[in-house]
């Protein structure tokens, strides 16, 4: 019986079995950002420890940075303090920092791939749950908390429980106007928000194979929203073509490809579970509730309470009450107040291109606040080089600097009151976008653009040719 990529990478990165039964796993790449690291560096100081492998550690700033006024000091004193902390910490511990004034700065899960740091077969860790994004390259990438950030800084290792592997095969092909975001929202809707606990998700099948690397990143990014800490796609020529020529790409590329190919799951690999999904069943998908699994196709009615098991009805009723939606209604035609295009899920160049196709020649509807936040400074520059910023600005979108922005609203980009936001981000939790009573509808960037120009939730298929 063959092995999966996850098990191959696990075996090759195993330092030893710990007395607890956990594995001491070597981490090939550690990405650090300003929000979950300051306490970890302080813990190192308290124990008199150094960073074990600064050459495998890279830092940037993304969560708290403003996307409009980026002059220092930042207007927000707390954000400024966090900037000073990461500058001091990376300087003291000799870690490279892609700071706000560096062209390589951006959302940590966007810049790792851009720089060629993210590579197949590698273990990757970062103090952020969307680290699963890097799995798009066939890396095994873990989101971790601050004590574990400390562990990786000090030892380049994590103490981890073995994971099972569920292969999710998306067969067939996608129709026009259906995007990677729809695929992952559909998968989470099918398997639930905790269906992936204890599993790594391996995404496969013709739909995934046909995807670009950026689309695969969107899929892997939201693995954690389905409960799976790790999600990945086996590496192939699409992966290698993306990595080639990037600043940290291996110099001996052919030898690298040889190893990467050897790390892909074997054809006869043993899986703990296999789920098949028909690509033709996936439509433009929008969340209606307060978890990423509470979603429907744009032309479907919201579920009835009776569709759910008894134990789930309390949560479902809570979602209807919070969102102010009714069972059986449709989302199309629901007025939106804000449109947000960006985030580690959908803030890359291809996302902006798809949204721009919808925005081109149209105007953001009256009363809608719309912003486009590129995932990195490189994405921003590339988008400007092909004139996307002009399309967005002419349509009435704000064109911003790089950062996490309104995905989690740690900077000044926030919903107000009960505002309803069409968002290309990853979480529709209560209060997620900065207003304790604000509401989020997750959807693809093209669907967000469609909502922005329509002033209401709209089927993007009616707006693109």
């Amino acid at each position, binding site marked *: 019986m063959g092995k999966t990529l996850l098990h191959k990478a696990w075996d090759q990165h195993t330092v030893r079995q710990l007395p607890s039964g*956990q594995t001491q796993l070597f981490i090939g790449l550690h990405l650090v950002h300003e929000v979950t690291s300051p306490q970890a560096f302080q813990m190192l100081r308290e124990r008199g420890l150094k960073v074990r492998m600064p050459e495998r550690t890279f830092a940037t700033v993304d969560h708290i940075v403003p996307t409009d006024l980026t002059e220092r000091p930042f207007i927000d004193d707390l954000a400024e303090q966090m900037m000073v902390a990461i500058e001091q910490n990376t300087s003291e511990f000799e870690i490279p920092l892609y700071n706000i004034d560096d062209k390589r700065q951006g959302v940590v899960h966007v810049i790792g791939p851009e720089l060629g740091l993210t590579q197949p*077969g590698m273990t990757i860790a970062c103090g952020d749950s969307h680290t699963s994004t890097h799995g798009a390259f066939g890396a095994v990438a873990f989101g971790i908390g601050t004590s574990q950030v400390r562990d990786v800084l000090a030892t380049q290792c994590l103490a981890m429980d073995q994971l099972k592997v569920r292969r999710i095969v998306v067969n067939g092909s996608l129709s026009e106007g259906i995007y990677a975001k729809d695929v992952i929202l559909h998968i989470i809707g099918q398997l639930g928000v905790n269906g992936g606990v204890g599993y790594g998700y391996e995404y496969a099948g013709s739909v995934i194979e046909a995807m670009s690397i950026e689309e695969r990143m969107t899929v892997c990014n939201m693995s*954690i929203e389905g409960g799976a800490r790790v999600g990945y796609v086996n590496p192939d020529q699409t992966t290698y073509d993306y990595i080639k020529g990037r600043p940290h790409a291996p110099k001996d590329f052919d030898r690298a490809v040889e*190893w990467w190919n050897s790390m892909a799951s074997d054809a006869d690999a043993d899986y703990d579970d296999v789920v098949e999904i028909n690509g033709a069943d996936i439509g433009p998908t929008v969340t209606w509730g307060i978890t990423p699994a509470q979603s429907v196709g744009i032309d479907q009615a919201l579920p009835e309470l009776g569709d759910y098991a008894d134990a789930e009805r309390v949560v479902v009723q809570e979602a209807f009450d919070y969102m102010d939606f009714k069972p059986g209604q449709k989302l199309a035609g629901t007025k939106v107040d804000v449109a947000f295009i960006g985030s580690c899920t959908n803030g890359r160049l291809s996302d902006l291109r798809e949204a721009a196709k919808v925005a081109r020649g149209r105007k953001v509807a009256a009363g809608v606040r719309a912003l486009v936040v590129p995932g990195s400074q490189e994405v921003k520059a590339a988008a400007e080089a092909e004139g996307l910023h002009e399309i967005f600005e002419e349509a009435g979108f704000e064109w911003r600097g790089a950062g996490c922005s309104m995905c989690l609203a740690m900077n000044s980009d926030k919903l107000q009151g009960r505002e309803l936001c069409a968002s290309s981000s990853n979480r529709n939790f209560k209060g997620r976008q900065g207003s304790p009573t604000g509401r989020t509808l997750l959807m693809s960037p093209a669907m967000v653009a469609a909502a922005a120009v329509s002033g209401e939730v709209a089927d993007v298929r009616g707006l693109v040719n």
Partner: protein
Amino acid sequence: MENSSVIANVTGSAVVVRGGDIDTDRIIPARYLRTVTFENLGEHVFEDDRAQGDHPFDEERYQGASILLANANFGCGSSREHAPQALTRWGINAFVGESFAEIFYGNCIAMGLPCLRVSAEDMQTLMAAVESDPAQELVVDLEARKVRYAGGAVAADIADGPREQFIKGNWDSLGQLLDAGDQIGETAAGLPYTNGFAVAG
């Protein structure tokens, strides 16, 4: 190691936090992550939920609780350790739930906060018992894998590894990882990407 202590059981009163899929944004809203320490997070735990009124963390009967009773998928969402850090600063020393999200669970273990799972049926029993007599003392017994309450006891699941680490007082992951010493460098050296693929894997 300095951060480890024996945790064979946790005894105290409990707070009932009903609801599935309670995410870490609700436990500690992102705006409070703008800090370089964990010190003041306890003041803001569940802040936005509490602002809506009727939150168990504000009920007089649950003040002083050290055990949190939860339903399914507690702690889903963001990896922020700020969530368990906020809860423990409010007073929570152990979690008993139907299930926990994986990163939250890992953060709790790393901080020395046991998380035990009980069946949905037993959780209903426990929650009802605590709601009718909130002053009663619960014992989260890691050795016996049980949660005892005034009316009896229910079976509680915890994996062998964390259970033994808590009971022996060696749950400090960093101490264990450091003990590997040179083995870390040896594993690294065996990976083709650490030497520019000079040696094919």
